[in-house]
Protein backbone atom coordinates (compact mmCIF):
# COMPACT_ATOMS: atom_id res chain seq x y z
CA UNK A 1 0.00 0.00 0.00
CA UNK A 2 2.57 2.54 1.13
CA UNK A 3 6.20 2.37 0.22
CA UNK A 4 8.74 4.74 1.70
CA UNK A 5 12.15 4.94 0.09
CA UNK A 6 15.16 6.82 1.41
CA UNK A 7 13.06 9.46 2.99
CA UNK A 8 15.01 12.32 4.53
CA UNK A 9 13.75 15.55 6.05
CA UNK A 10 15.85 18.63 6.69
CA UNK A 11 14.90 21.74 8.60
CA UNK A 12 16.94 24.79 7.69
CA UNK A 13 19.83 22.61 6.73
CA UNK A 14 19.78 20.43 9.83
CA UNK A 15 18.70 16.85 9.21
CA UNK A 16 15.70 15.63 11.18
CA UNK A 17 15.23 12.26 9.53
CA UNK A 18 17.52 10.12 7.45
CA UNK A 19 17.49 6.92 5.43
CA UNK A 20 13.94 6.04 6.26
CA UNK A 21 12.62 3.16 4.20
CA UNK A 22 9.77 0.79 4.93
CA UNK A 23 6.71 -0.81 3.43
CA UNK A 24 3.24 -0.82 4.81
CA UNK A 25 1.02 -3.72 3.83
CA UNK A 26 -2.66 -3.15 3.19
CA UNK A 27 -4.89 -4.01 6.08
CA UNK A 28 -2.04 -3.74 8.57
CA UNK A 29 -1.48 -1.51 11.51
CA UNK A 30 2.05 -0.17 11.17
CA UNK A 31 3.34 1.13 14.46
CA UNK A 32 6.12 3.66 14.84
CA UNK A 33 7.69 3.92 18.26
CA UNK A 34 10.70 5.72 19.61
CA UNK A 35 11.82 8.35 22.10
CA UNK A 36 10.54 11.92 21.96
CA UNK A 37 12.13 14.15 19.43
CA UNK A 38 13.27 11.32 17.21
CA UNK A 39 11.15 12.59 14.35
CA UNK A 40 8.12 10.30 14.45
CA UNK A 41 5.60 13.08 13.92
CA UNK A 42 7.68 14.61 11.17
CA UNK A 43 7.81 11.25 9.43
CA UNK A 44 4.06 10.95 9.60
CA UNK A 45 3.58 14.39 8.14
CA UNK A 46 5.91 13.60 5.30
CA UNK A 47 3.64 10.76 4.27
CA UNK A 48 0.72 13.02 3.36
CA UNK A 49 2.91 15.98 2.50
CA UNK A 50 1.68 18.05 5.38
CA UNK A 51 5.34 18.94 5.61
CA UNK A 52 4.78 21.23 2.64
CA UNK A 53 2.91 23.56 4.94
CA UNK A 54 5.76 23.93 7.41
CA UNK A 55 8.21 26.60 6.30
CA UNK A 56 11.83 25.59 6.23
CA UNK A 57 11.29 21.85 5.84
CA UNK A 58 12.78 20.07 2.90
CA UNK A 59 11.87 16.52 2.06
CA UNK A 60 13.89 14.22 -0.16
CA UNK A 61 13.30 10.61 -1.11
CA UNK A 62 9.97 9.17 -2.05
CA UNK A 63 6.69 8.00 -0.66
CA UNK A 64 4.51 5.86 -2.90
CA UNK A 65 0.85 5.19 -2.42
CA UNK A 66 -0.15 2.09 -4.38
CA UNK A 67 2.89 2.49 -6.53
CA UNK A 68 2.30 6.15 -7.47
CA UNK A 69 4.69 8.65 -6.02
CA UNK A 70 3.30 11.28 -3.68
CA UNK A 71 6.15 13.59 -4.44
CA UNK A 72 5.92 13.59 -8.21
CA UNK A 73 5.50 16.92 -9.94
CA UNK A 74 1.90 17.83 -10.43
CA UNK A 75 0.52 15.66 -7.65
CA UNK A 76 -2.88 16.85 -6.57
CA UNK A 77 -2.13 17.49 -2.92
CA UNK A 78 -5.70 17.95 -1.86
CA UNK A 79 -6.78 14.67 -3.40
CA UNK A 80 -3.75 13.02 -1.82
CA UNK A 81 -4.67 14.25 1.61
CA UNK A 82 -8.16 12.97 1.13
CA UNK A 83 -6.79 9.52 0.35
CA UNK A 84 -4.48 9.62 3.34
CA UNK A 85 -6.39 10.76 6.39
CA UNK A 86 -4.86 12.03 9.61
CA UNK A 87 -5.71 12.04 13.27
CA UNK A 88 -3.82 14.38 15.57
CA UNK A 89 -2.81 14.12 19.18
CA UNK A 90 -5.16 16.89 20.25
CA UNK A 91 -8.60 16.55 18.71
CA UNK A 92 -9.22 19.58 16.51
CA UNK A 93 -12.90 20.34 16.32
CA UNK A 94 -14.30 23.00 14.04
CA UNK A 95 -16.78 25.35 15.71
CA UNK A 96 -19.79 23.80 14.05
CA UNK A 97 -22.34 21.12 14.69
CA UNK A 98 -21.42 17.45 14.96
CA UNK A 99 -22.93 16.68 11.59
CA UNK A 100 -21.15 19.56 9.91
CA UNK A 101 -17.87 18.48 11.40
CA UNK A 102 -18.24 15.02 9.95
CA UNK A 103 -19.07 16.38 6.53
CA UNK A 104 -16.41 19.05 6.56
CA UNK A 105 -14.04 17.31 4.21
CA UNK A 106 -16.52 15.03 2.49
CA UNK A 107 -18.79 17.71 1.10
CA UNK A 108 -15.97 19.31 -0.79
CA UNK A 109 -15.09 16.21 -2.71
CA UNK A 110 -18.38 16.06 -4.52
CA UNK A 111 -21.74 17.64 -4.10
CA UNK A 112 -24.01 15.55 -1.94
CA UNK A 113 -27.76 15.47 -1.82
CA UNK A 114 -29.43 15.70 1.55
CA UNK A 115 -30.04 12.00 1.61
CA UNK A 116 -26.44 11.29 0.76
CA UNK A 117 -25.33 13.60 3.53
CA UNK A 118 -27.28 11.71 6.11
CA UNK A 119 -25.85 8.47 4.83
CA UNK A 120 -22.29 9.68 4.93
CA UNK A 121 -22.69 11.06 8.43
CA UNK A 122 -24.29 7.91 9.77
CA UNK A 123 -21.80 5.60 8.13
CA UNK A 124 -18.78 7.54 9.34
CA UNK A 125 -20.10 7.88 12.87
CA UNK A 126 -20.93 4.19 13.04
CA UNK A 127 -17.51 3.27 11.84
CA UNK A 128 -16.05 5.52 14.54
CA UNK A 129 -18.31 3.94 17.17
CA UNK A 130 -19.87 7.30 17.95
CA UNK A 131 -23.24 6.98 16.28
CA UNK A 132 -25.23 5.73 19.23
CA UNK A 133 -24.00 8.49 21.46
CA UNK A 134 -24.73 11.40 19.19
CA UNK A 135 -27.48 10.31 16.82
CA UNK A 136 -30.00 12.58 18.54
CA UNK A 137 -27.87 15.63 18.59
CA UNK A 138 -26.22 15.90 15.26
CA UNK A 139 -27.11 19.54 15.07
CA UNK A 140 -25.68 20.56 18.39
CA UNK A 141 -22.25 22.07 18.67
CA UNK A 142 -19.43 19.59 18.56
CA UNK A 143 -17.63 21.51 21.29
CA UNK A 144 -19.94 20.00 23.88
CA UNK A 145 -18.48 16.54 23.40
CA UNK A 146 -15.98 15.04 25.80
CA UNK A 147 -12.38 14.77 24.69
CA UNK A 148 -12.71 11.09 23.96
CA UNK A 149 -15.81 11.69 21.89
CA UNK A 150 -14.12 14.56 20.09
CA UNK A 151 -11.28 12.34 19.04
CA UNK A 152 -13.74 9.80 17.68
CA UNK A 153 -15.49 12.64 15.89
CA UNK A 154 -12.19 13.58 14.27
CA UNK A 155 -11.86 9.98 13.23
CA UNK A 156 -15.36 9.98 11.77
CA UNK A 157 -14.54 13.16 9.92
CA UNK A 158 -11.45 11.57 8.45
CA UNK A 159 -13.36 8.38 7.60
CA UNK A 160 -16.10 10.31 5.81
CA UNK A 161 -13.60 11.15 3.11
CA UNK A 162 -13.03 7.41 2.48
CA UNK A 163 -9.29 7.34 2.90
CA UNK A 164 -7.26 4.27 2.09
CA UNK A 165 -4.68 5.00 4.71
CA UNK A 166 -5.13 6.65 8.07
CA UNK A 167 -2.21 8.26 9.87
CA UNK A 168 -2.51 8.60 13.60
CA UNK A 169 -0.15 10.79 15.60
CA UNK A 170 -0.35 9.61 19.21
CA UNK A 171 -4.13 9.68 19.08
CA UNK A 172 -4.69 8.57 22.64
CA UNK A 173 -2.08 10.44 24.64
CA UNK A 174 -4.57 13.19 25.49
CA UNK A 175 -7.30 10.74 26.46
CA UNK A 176 -8.39 8.92 29.61
CA UNK A 177 -7.95 5.11 29.79
CA UNK A 178 -11.54 4.34 28.82
CA UNK A 179 -11.43 6.48 25.69
CA UNK A 180 -8.01 5.11 24.90
CA UNK A 181 -9.45 1.61 25.04
CA UNK A 182 -12.28 2.66 22.75
CA UNK A 183 -9.89 4.04 20.16
CA UNK A 184 -7.70 0.97 20.30
CA UNK A 185 -10.71 -1.26 19.71
CA UNK A 186 -11.62 0.95 16.79
CA UNK A 187 -8.19 0.62 15.29
CA UNK A 188 -8.41 -3.13 15.41
CA UNK A 189 -11.78 -3.01 13.71
CA UNK A 190 -10.77 -0.43 11.13
CA UNK A 191 -7.82 -2.31 9.82
CA UNK A 192 -10.07 -4.74 8.05
CA UNK A 193 -10.87 -2.12 5.45
CA UNK A 194 -8.11 0.38 5.86
CA UNK A 195 -4.42 0.63 6.45
CA UNK A 196 -3.23 2.44 9.53
CA UNK A 197 0.07 4.01 10.43
CA UNK A 198 0.22 4.68 14.13
CA UNK A 199 2.76 6.74 16.02
CA UNK A 200 2.70 6.01 19.69
CA UNK A 201 4.67 6.61 22.85
CA UNK A 202 3.00 3.76 24.59
CA UNK A 203 4.79 0.49 23.98
CA UNK A 204 1.98 -1.48 25.56
CA UNK A 205 -0.41 0.08 23.11
CA UNK A 206 1.88 -0.85 20.24
CA UNK A 207 1.95 -4.38 21.49
CA UNK A 208 -1.84 -4.56 21.65
CA UNK A 209 -2.59 -3.01 18.33
CA UNK A 210 0.26 -3.12 15.81
CA UNK A 211 1.14 -5.84 13.32
CA UNK A 212 4.47 -4.35 12.36
CA UNK A 213 6.74 -2.07 14.30
CA UNK A 214 9.42 0.36 13.31
CA UNK A 215 11.56 1.96 15.91
CA UNK A 216 13.07 5.35 15.26
CA UNK A 217 15.94 6.64 17.31
CA UNK A 218 18.41 9.43 16.94
CA UNK A 219 21.69 8.45 15.37
CA UNK A 220 24.27 11.11 14.59
CA UNK A 221 21.82 13.86 15.29
CA UNK A 222 18.99 12.69 13.06
CA UNK A 223 16.23 10.14 13.34
CA UNK A 224 16.77 6.81 11.66
CA UNK A 225 14.94 3.54 11.61
CA UNK A 226 16.78 1.31 13.97
CA UNK A 227 14.64 -1.71 13.62
CA UNK A 228 11.72 -2.67 11.50
CA UNK A 229 10.09 -6.03 11.80
CA UNK A 230 6.91 -7.75 12.71
CA UNK A 231 5.73 -6.64 16.09
CA UNK A 232 6.35 -9.78 18.06
CA UNK A 233 9.83 -10.03 16.68
CA UNK A 234 10.76 -6.53 17.72
CA UNK A 235 9.36 -6.71 21.18
CA UNK A 236 10.15 -10.31 21.92
CA UNK A 237 13.68 -10.25 20.67
CA UNK A 238 14.97 -6.76 20.23
CA UNK A 239 18.02 -6.61 18.02
CA UNK A 240 19.64 -3.35 18.79
CA UNK A 241 20.68 -1.77 22.00
CA UNK A 242 18.56 1.32 21.65
CA UNK A 243 15.37 -0.71 21.37
CA UNK A 244 16.28 -2.69 24.44
CA UNK A 245 17.04 0.45 26.43
CA UNK A 246 13.89 2.06 25.26
CA UNK A 247 11.76 -0.94 26.13
CA UNK A 248 13.31 -1.14 29.54
CA UNK A 249 12.65 2.55 30.16
CA UNK A 250 9.17 2.44 28.77
CA UNK A 251 7.81 -0.67 30.44
Amino acid at each position, binding site marked *: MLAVRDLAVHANGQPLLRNVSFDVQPGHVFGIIGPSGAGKSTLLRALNRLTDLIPGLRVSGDVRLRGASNYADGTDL*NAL*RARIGMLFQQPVIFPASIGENVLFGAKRLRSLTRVERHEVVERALREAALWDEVRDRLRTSALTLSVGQQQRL*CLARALAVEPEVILMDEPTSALDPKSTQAIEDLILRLKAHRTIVLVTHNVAQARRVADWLACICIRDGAGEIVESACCDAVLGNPQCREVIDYLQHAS
Partner: protein
Amino acid sequence: MTRAWSWFFSLVAIGTLALLVGIFVWQSLPVWRHEGWGYLTGTKWFFRQQEFGAWPMIYGSIVVSGVALVLAAPFGMGAAIFTAEYLPRAPRLAVKVLIELLAGVPSVVYGLLGILLLRNWIYDLFAPFDPLSGDTLLTAGVLLAVMILPTVVTLGDDALRAVPAAQRRAARALGLTRAETILHVALPQARRGLGAALLLALGRAFGETIAVFLVVGRQDNNLPERLLSLRPLLESGQTLTSKLGGSETNISYGDPLHWAAIVGLGLILLVLTGALTVIGTAFGRRSDA
Protein backbone atom coordinates in the same frame (compact mmCIF):
# COMPACT_ATOMS: atom_id res chain seq x y z
CA MET B 1 4.60 56.89 48.84
CA THR B 2 4.89 55.24 45.49
CA ARG B 3 1.37 54.07 45.80
CA ALA B 4 0.17 57.54 46.63
CA TRP B 5 1.96 59.10 43.69
CA SER B 6 0.66 56.44 41.33
CA TRP B 7 -2.86 57.05 42.40
CA PHE B 8 -2.37 60.79 42.29
CA PHE B 9 -1.21 60.85 38.71
CA SER B 10 -3.83 58.35 37.68
CA LEU B 11 -6.58 60.38 39.22
CA VAL B 12 -5.26 63.52 37.56
CA ALA B 13 -5.55 61.75 34.23
CA ILE B 14 -8.95 60.23 34.91
CA GLY B 15 -10.19 63.45 36.48
CA THR B 16 -9.20 65.42 33.43
CA LEU B 17 -11.15 63.07 31.25
CA ALA B 18 -14.20 63.26 33.46
CA LEU B 19 -13.86 67.01 33.38
CA LEU B 20 -13.74 66.91 29.61
CA VAL B 21 -16.96 64.97 29.31
CA GLY B 22 -18.59 67.09 31.98
CA ILE B 23 -17.63 70.30 30.27
CA PHE B 24 -19.07 69.16 26.99
CA VAL B 25 -22.32 68.26 28.61
CA TRP B 26 -22.53 71.40 30.71
CA GLN B 27 -21.47 73.93 28.11
CA SER B 28 -23.89 72.62 25.55
CA LEU B 29 -26.90 72.76 27.88
CA PRO B 30 -28.27 76.05 26.54
CA VAL B 31 -28.77 74.69 23.06
CA TRP B 32 -30.50 71.56 24.37
CA ARG B 33 -32.82 73.76 26.30
CA HIS B 34 -33.38 76.01 23.34
CA GLU B 35 -33.99 73.41 20.70
CA GLY B 36 -34.69 70.22 22.59
CA TRP B 37 -34.40 67.14 20.44
CA GLY B 38 -34.89 69.39 17.47
CA TYR B 39 -31.22 70.13 17.78
CA LEU B 40 -30.45 66.64 16.59
CA THR B 41 -33.07 66.52 13.88
CA GLY B 42 -33.13 70.12 12.72
CA THR B 43 -31.82 70.61 9.24
CA LYS B 44 -30.97 74.26 9.25
CA TRP B 45 -28.04 76.03 10.78
CA PHE B 46 -28.28 79.77 10.72
CA PHE B 47 -26.38 81.04 13.67
CA ARG B 48 -27.28 84.62 13.11
CA GLN B 49 -30.93 83.75 13.45
CA GLN B 50 -30.15 81.51 16.42
CA GLU B 51 -31.38 78.49 14.55
CA PHE B 52 -29.30 75.36 15.12
CA GLY B 53 -29.89 71.98 13.57
CA ALA B 54 -27.16 69.38 13.71
CA TRP B 55 -28.67 66.78 11.44
CA PRO B 56 -26.93 67.84 8.20
CA MET B 57 -23.61 67.50 9.94
CA ILE B 58 -24.45 64.17 11.50
CA TYR B 59 -25.59 63.06 8.07
CA GLY B 60 -22.36 64.35 6.55
CA SER B 61 -20.24 62.49 9.07
CA ILE B 62 -22.16 59.27 8.52
CA VAL B 63 -21.98 59.53 4.74
CA VAL B 64 -18.31 60.36 4.63
CA SER B 65 -17.36 57.59 7.06
CA GLY B 66 -19.68 55.16 5.34
CA VAL B 67 -18.12 55.81 1.96
CA ALA B 68 -14.69 55.42 3.50
CA LEU B 69 -15.57 52.07 5.05
CA VAL B 70 -17.25 50.73 1.91
CA LEU B 71 -14.17 51.57 -0.12
CA ALA B 72 -11.52 50.55 2.37
CA ALA B 73 -13.06 47.33 3.68
CA PRO B 74 -12.71 45.11 0.61
CA PHE B 75 -9.16 46.17 -0.17
CA GLY B 76 -8.14 46.13 3.45
CA MET B 77 -9.65 42.72 4.12
CA GLY B 78 -8.15 41.29 0.97
CA ALA B 79 -4.77 42.65 1.93
CA ALA B 80 -5.16 41.28 5.44
CA ILE B 81 -5.99 37.83 4.05
CA PHE B 82 -2.90 38.04 1.90
CA THR B 83 -0.56 39.00 4.74
CA ALA B 84 -2.05 36.62 7.27
CA GLU B 85 -2.52 33.53 5.12
CA TYR B 86 -0.10 33.69 2.25
CA LEU B 87 2.99 35.54 3.32
CA PRO B 88 5.80 33.76 5.14
CA ARG B 89 7.03 35.17 8.40
CA ALA B 90 9.69 37.64 7.34
CA PRO B 91 7.87 39.37 4.46
CA ARG B 92 4.74 39.52 6.58
CA LEU B 93 6.54 41.37 9.33
CA ALA B 94 8.07 43.73 6.79
CA VAL B 95 4.70 44.52 5.25
CA LYS B 96 3.16 45.01 8.68
CA VAL B 97 5.88 47.42 9.69
CA LEU B 98 5.50 49.30 6.44
CA ILE B 99 1.75 49.58 6.78
CA GLU B 100 1.97 50.72 10.40
CA LEU B 101 4.49 53.32 9.41
CA LEU B 102 2.19 54.60 6.73
CA ALA B 103 -0.66 54.66 9.22
CA GLY B 104 1.22 57.45 10.94
CA VAL B 105 1.03 59.86 8.03
CA PRO B 106 -0.44 63.04 9.52
CA SER B 107 -3.92 64.03 8.45
CA VAL B 108 -2.77 67.44 7.31
CA VAL B 109 -0.53 65.75 4.74
CA TYR B 110 -3.47 63.69 3.56
CA GLY B 111 -5.46 66.89 3.37
CA LEU B 112 -2.78 68.48 1.26
CA LEU B 113 -2.75 65.52 -1.09
CA GLY B 114 -6.52 65.63 -1.21
CA ILE B 115 -6.57 69.26 -2.19
CA LEU B 116 -3.85 69.12 -4.73
CA LEU B 117 -4.56 65.75 -6.30
CA LEU B 118 -7.84 64.16 -5.36
CA ARG B 119 -10.01 67.20 -5.69
CA ASN B 120 -9.31 67.77 -9.37
CA TRP B 121 -9.40 64.10 -10.13
CA ILE B 122 -12.91 63.73 -8.73
CA TYR B 123 -14.03 66.89 -10.46
CA ASP B 124 -12.81 65.63 -13.81
CA LEU B 125 -13.95 62.09 -13.30
CA PHE B 126 -17.52 63.07 -12.53
CA ALA B 127 -17.73 65.95 -15.00
CA PRO B 128 -20.71 64.37 -16.76
CA PHE B 129 -22.64 64.85 -13.53
CA ASP B 130 -21.82 68.52 -13.46
CA PRO B 131 -20.51 68.96 -9.93
CA LEU B 132 -20.05 72.46 -8.60
CA SER B 133 -16.54 71.81 -7.40
CA GLY B 134 -14.19 69.07 -6.43
CA ASP B 135 -14.84 69.58 -2.73
CA THR B 136 -17.55 67.08 -2.06
CA LEU B 137 -18.65 64.46 0.40
CA LEU B 138 -17.35 61.86 -2.00
CA THR B 139 -13.91 63.46 -2.06
CA ALA B 140 -13.75 63.39 1.69
CA GLY B 141 -14.96 59.80 1.72
CA VAL B 142 -12.33 58.64 -0.72
CA LEU B 143 -9.59 60.44 1.18
CA LEU B 144 -10.75 58.90 4.44
CA ALA B 145 -10.81 55.47 2.82
CA VAL B 146 -7.10 55.73 2.15
CA MET B 147 -6.52 56.98 5.68
CA ILE B 148 -8.26 54.09 7.39
CA LEU B 149 -6.89 51.44 5.05
CA PRO B 150 -3.83 50.71 7.23
CA THR B 151 -6.06 50.29 10.27
CA VAL B 152 -8.24 47.74 8.50
CA VAL B 153 -5.23 45.80 7.23
CA THR B 154 -3.37 45.70 10.54
CA LEU B 155 -6.34 44.80 12.72
CA GLY B 156 -7.68 42.36 10.14
CA ASP B 157 -4.32 40.63 9.99
CA ASP B 158 -4.25 40.36 13.78
CA ALA B 159 -7.74 38.89 13.82
CA LEU B 160 -6.85 36.23 11.27
CA ARG B 161 -3.59 35.30 12.98
CA ALA B 162 -5.52 34.75 16.19
CA VAL B 163 -7.19 31.68 14.68
CA PRO B 164 -5.12 28.69 15.87
CA ALA B 165 -2.84 27.04 13.35
CA ALA B 166 -4.14 23.64 14.44
CA GLN B 167 -7.51 24.43 12.87
CA ARG B 168 -5.93 25.18 9.52
CA ARG B 169 -3.74 22.12 9.72
CA ALA B 170 -6.69 19.87 10.43
CA ALA B 171 -8.57 21.28 7.47
CA ARG B 172 -5.63 20.82 5.11
CA ALA B 173 -5.14 17.29 6.39
CA LEU B 174 -8.68 16.53 5.31
CA GLY B 175 -7.83 17.60 1.83
CA LEU B 176 -9.28 21.11 1.78
CA THR B 177 -7.54 23.54 -0.54
CA ARG B 178 -5.88 26.62 0.85
CA ALA B 179 -8.72 28.84 -0.33
CA GLU B 180 -11.32 26.55 1.22
CA THR B 181 -9.41 26.59 4.49
CA ILE B 182 -9.30 30.36 4.50
CA LEU B 183 -12.92 30.80 3.51
CA HIS B 184 -14.44 28.10 5.69
CA VAL B 185 -12.14 27.86 8.67
CA ALA B 186 -10.05 31.01 9.15
CA LEU B 187 -12.49 33.72 8.12
CA PRO B 188 -15.51 32.39 10.04
CA GLN B 189 -13.47 31.96 13.18
CA ALA B 190 -11.99 35.44 12.82
CA ARG B 191 -15.41 37.02 12.38
CA ARG B 192 -15.37 38.79 15.71
CA GLY B 193 -11.99 40.35 15.30
CA LEU B 194 -12.68 41.37 11.73
CA GLY B 195 -15.91 43.05 12.77
CA ALA B 196 -14.06 44.88 15.50
CA ALA B 197 -11.45 45.99 12.98
CA LEU B 198 -14.14 47.52 10.80
CA LEU B 199 -15.87 49.21 13.70
CA LEU B 200 -12.66 50.72 14.97
CA ALA B 201 -11.73 51.90 11.48
CA LEU B 202 -15.17 53.46 11.19
CA GLY B 203 -14.64 55.23 14.48
CA ARG B 204 -11.39 56.61 13.22
CA ALA B 205 -12.98 57.87 10.04
CA PHE B 206 -15.78 59.43 12.01
CA GLY B 207 -13.45 61.48 14.15
CA GLU B 208 -11.06 62.65 11.48
CA THR B 209 -11.01 66.43 11.32
CA ILE B 210 -8.30 68.08 9.30
CA ALA B 211 -8.32 66.05 6.11
CA VAL B 212 -12.10 66.18 5.91
CA PHE B 213 -12.10 69.88 6.67
CA LEU B 214 -9.91 70.58 3.69
CA VAL B 215 -11.87 68.73 1.03
CA VAL B 216 -15.48 68.38 2.07
CA GLY B 217 -16.59 71.80 0.94
CA ARG B 218 -17.86 73.02 4.28
CA GLN B 219 -21.25 73.86 2.95
CA ASP B 220 -24.01 74.23 5.50
CA ASN B 221 -27.68 73.59 4.98
CA ASN B 222 -27.09 71.41 1.98
CA LEU B 223 -29.00 68.36 3.10
CA PRO B 224 -30.36 66.53 0.04
CA GLU B 225 -34.05 65.67 -0.23
CA ARG B 226 -33.44 62.03 -1.04
CA LEU B 227 -30.85 60.83 1.40
CA LEU B 228 -30.02 57.47 -0.06
CA SER B 229 -29.28 58.34 -3.64
CA LEU B 230 -25.79 58.74 -4.99
CA ARG B 231 -26.14 62.24 -6.41
CA PRO B 232 -25.77 64.00 -3.04
CA LEU B 233 -22.33 62.54 -2.76
CA LEU B 234 -21.18 65.00 -5.34
CA GLU B 235 -22.36 67.96 -3.34
CA SER B 236 -20.31 69.89 -0.87
CA GLY B 237 -21.24 69.13 2.66
CA GLN B 238 -20.38 69.54 6.29
CA THR B 239 -19.45 67.05 8.93
CA LEU B 240 -19.39 67.34 12.69
CA THR B 241 -15.62 67.59 12.61
CA SER B 242 -15.35 70.02 9.74
CA LYS B 243 -17.76 72.38 11.47
CA LEU B 244 -15.84 72.17 14.72
CA GLY B 245 -12.62 72.91 12.93
CA GLY B 246 -13.99 75.99 11.29
CA SER B 247 -14.07 79.62 12.18
CA GLU B 248 -17.34 79.49 14.06
CA THR B 249 -15.63 77.81 16.97
CA ASN B 250 -13.43 80.81 17.51
CA ILE B 251 -15.99 83.52 17.02
CA SER B 252 -18.88 82.00 18.87
CA TYR B 253 -17.40 81.99 22.33
CA GLY B 254 -19.02 85.23 23.35
CA ASP B 255 -22.54 84.17 22.46
CA PRO B 256 -23.82 81.56 24.92
CA LEU B 257 -26.31 79.93 22.59
CA HIS B 258 -24.07 79.83 19.58
CA TRP B 259 -21.24 78.49 21.70
CA ALA B 260 -23.52 75.90 23.22
CA ALA B 261 -24.51 74.78 19.75
CA ILE B 262 -20.89 74.32 18.76
CA VAL B 263 -20.03 72.44 21.93
CA GLY B 264 -23.15 70.38 21.37
CA LEU B 265 -21.66 69.19 18.11
CA GLY B 266 -18.60 68.18 20.05
CA LEU B 267 -20.75 66.28 22.51
CA ILE B 268 -22.50 64.39 19.71
CA LEU B 269 -19.11 63.56 18.23
CA LEU B 270 -17.88 62.41 21.63
CA VAL B 271 -20.83 60.13 22.18
CA LEU B 272 -20.79 58.61 18.71
CA THR B 273 -17.07 57.93 18.45
CA GLY B 274 -16.99 56.77 22.05
CA ALA B 275 -19.78 54.31 21.35
CA LEU B 276 -18.12 53.02 18.18
CA THR B 277 -14.83 52.52 19.98
CA VAL B 278 -16.35 50.82 23.02
CA ILE B 279 -18.49 48.49 20.94
CA GLY B 280 -15.64 47.75 18.59
CA THR B 281 -13.23 46.92 21.40
CA ALA B 282 -15.76 44.84 23.31
CA PHE B 283 -16.72 43.00 20.15
CA GLY B 284 -13.17 42.03 19.45
CA ARG B 285 -12.39 40.87 22.94
CA ARG B 286 -15.38 38.68 23.61
CA SER B 287 -13.34 35.73 22.45
CA ASP B 288 -11.52 35.54 25.74
CA ALA B 289 -14.71 34.74 27.61
